[in-house]
């Protein structure tokens, strides 16, 4: 299936992915190019400002927001391998003066899976991924961007993320006991409430282990970074892989 169009895309790579998980940024860039998109990575980008705002310092984040808008206002779409950052831009840039650029950036910022499903309208990426995969539904993507229906809401079942994965050759998507419980990362929550955060992370990893997953994937590397930290500390036999890396393991 051909993408619904060719767009000028500003690639936003969240700060912690830039610094610690460059392979996720590379996979996102490669995937979007394979999908015939005109992808640019503005070099003066830094961060969406969420780490500050989630800690209560949105006033200090304003200049960070403005830098984001300056970097991305010229594109048709801003695409990022993070549901949480995309949600933050859409939801919390409301404290800026709503100039044409701000409104456009807020409207045109997309999480990667959502962009592929809703804008490019590609539903089969011809992926080959012969592994048992557990999908961790990151909260801001799930409940904020509505990438799927959260288990609390009485509504029809769907998931833009799982729809993209389930067509992969060889993949086995495992069912979790708790399909969409928070992993306990929560940004600076992981620092201010370390005991609860770590316990939540262990419980989430255990759910995947109990159900025989080889790989935990998610739309957010931040959740995966937290779970990876727990997996390594406890020597568990399971890997974390960002969804962009799975979606890029294709033969388009």
């Amino acid at each position: 299936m051909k993408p619904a169009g060719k767009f000028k895309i500003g690639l936003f790579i969240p700060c912690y992915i830039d610094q610690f998980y460059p392979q996720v940024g590379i996979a996102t860039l490669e995937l979007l190019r394979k999908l015939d998109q005109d992808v640019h990575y503005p070099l003066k980008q830094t961060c969406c400002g969420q780490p500050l705002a989630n800690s209560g310092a949105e006033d200090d984040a304003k200049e960070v927001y403005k830098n984001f808008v300056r970097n991305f206002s010229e594109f048709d779409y801003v695409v990022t391998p993070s549901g949480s950052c995309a949600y933050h831009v859409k939801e919390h840039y409301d404290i800026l003066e709503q100039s044409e650029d701000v409104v456009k950036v807020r409207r045109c910022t997309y999480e990667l899976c959502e962009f592929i499903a809703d804008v490019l309208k590609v539903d089969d990426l011809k992926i080959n991924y012969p592994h048992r995969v557990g999908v961790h539904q990151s909260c801001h993507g799930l409940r904020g961007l509505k990438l799927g229906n959260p288990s609390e809401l009485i509504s029809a079942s769907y998931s833009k993320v799982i729809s993209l994965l389930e067509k992969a050759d060889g993949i086995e998507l495992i069912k979790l006991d708790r399909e969409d419980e928070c992993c306990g990362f929560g940004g600076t929550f992981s620092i201010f409430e370390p005991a609860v955060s770590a316990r939540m992370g262990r419980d989430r990893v255990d759910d995947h282990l109990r159900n025989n997953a080889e790989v935990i994937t998610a739309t957010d590397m931040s959740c995966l970074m937290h779970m990876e930290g727990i997996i390594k500390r406890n020597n568990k036999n399971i890997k974390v892989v960002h969804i962009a890396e799975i979606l890029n393991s294709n033969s388009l």
Partner: protein
Amino acid sequence: MTSHSERAAAFLKDPDRVSWHDETLWIVRKKRDRAAASVKEWENLREKASKLKEYVLSDLAGLLTEFERNATLNGAVVHWAADADEFNRVVLEIIKSKNARNIVKSKSMLTEECGLNHFLQDHGVDIVDTDLGERIIQFRNEPPSHIVLPAIHLKKEDIGELFHLKLGTDRGATDPQYLTRAARVHLREKFLNAHVALTGVNFAIAENGTVVVCTNEGNADMGVHSAPVQIHCMGIEKIIPKMEHLAVFTRLLARNATGQPVTTYTSHYRTPKENGELHIIIVDNGRTERLASIDYRDALKCIRCGACMNTCPVYRRSGGHSYGFTIPGPIGTILAPHSVPGKILYKDLPAASSLCMSCSNVCPVKIGIHEQIYKLRQELIRKGYGSFVKRAILKISGFVFAKPVLYDISGKMVRIALKIVPRFLIYSRVNTWGLERELPAVPTQSFKEWYRQNGSN
């Protein structure tokens, strides 16, 4: 005073008990899901309940005076209390005027909020909580750890031990039926000797002056029927306009709270018994101030179902007492900081959330709980709370993130530092991330560095 994170860490020291607490409440959450799914218009019902509550908050004064007029016509005596202190004194005056000594109570978080039990005990009045969970924590001289399941932090072994001490049950007995029976015998005697029965109020209906109390054990009825004087206490936000609106809420309340289609008893109290007295006390205690606050007023829509606690991944693992406020969990987190007009209290609670938003999704009246937690965090920093170190780190980060060159340099420095600094220094006690987690491995290049070399094609 300790913070939520310290109290949570203490609760988490017993991992098996935490697993049990988490799993027990998760079962309640699953029951809620099934009960909600059995009502196909569930989400519409939530929307309707939310709109009704918004209407109520938009005309609180009008509806309350309409309620007072109709309740008075029914023969009730309506009292108003501006704060906890006045509320406690009004209750004491009623009790004194009847020379009453034995009071039985059922289903009231408001009396917990106002500290009524201790106030009355200090004035020589014996007030007994008659609902099983409440009686258990009263015996233990503890606050509730959940608003619907007040003793959910305790296991049957704990209850067996407690009842052995307080009620003389067999040592080591843990059979729930045996223990419940012992409580029943004990409470029956309290009911028979009660002079005044006191209850909370779930809904007060403006058009006919009725108060409605939803219970499972039937103790509100038992008390009201056995004591000559009945007192119903309500916060000003409990009002609903008409009888026809009640079902919107009763259809949501029990399903969302415990997964039951409806509470076992939905008691309507309208007129005093023959030769009896019916008092209704309407309490403000900070609610008017909240009503005037655009950011936080929606919390007044709460119908106290407790579903936000059952779904909260933090609450299930930190326990209700970790919040240190009468109402724990997500709703407690947004009520506590502004619970006393003119002050900001419980400043540790807004940080005790991963902002997963599940609370807002289960809320039957659609309170944007996570949005209010986010706003509270902004307010705390804006008003200069939070440690100097935390505020300094935030200020510096804001400065660095706003300057691309500084960001690039800082990022590189952090990556180099993580590579060359010895492990024991990186994993020192101040690195709370590293207490139970590894930091990510450091790559040779950042994405930006890679892109500069390879990104153009």
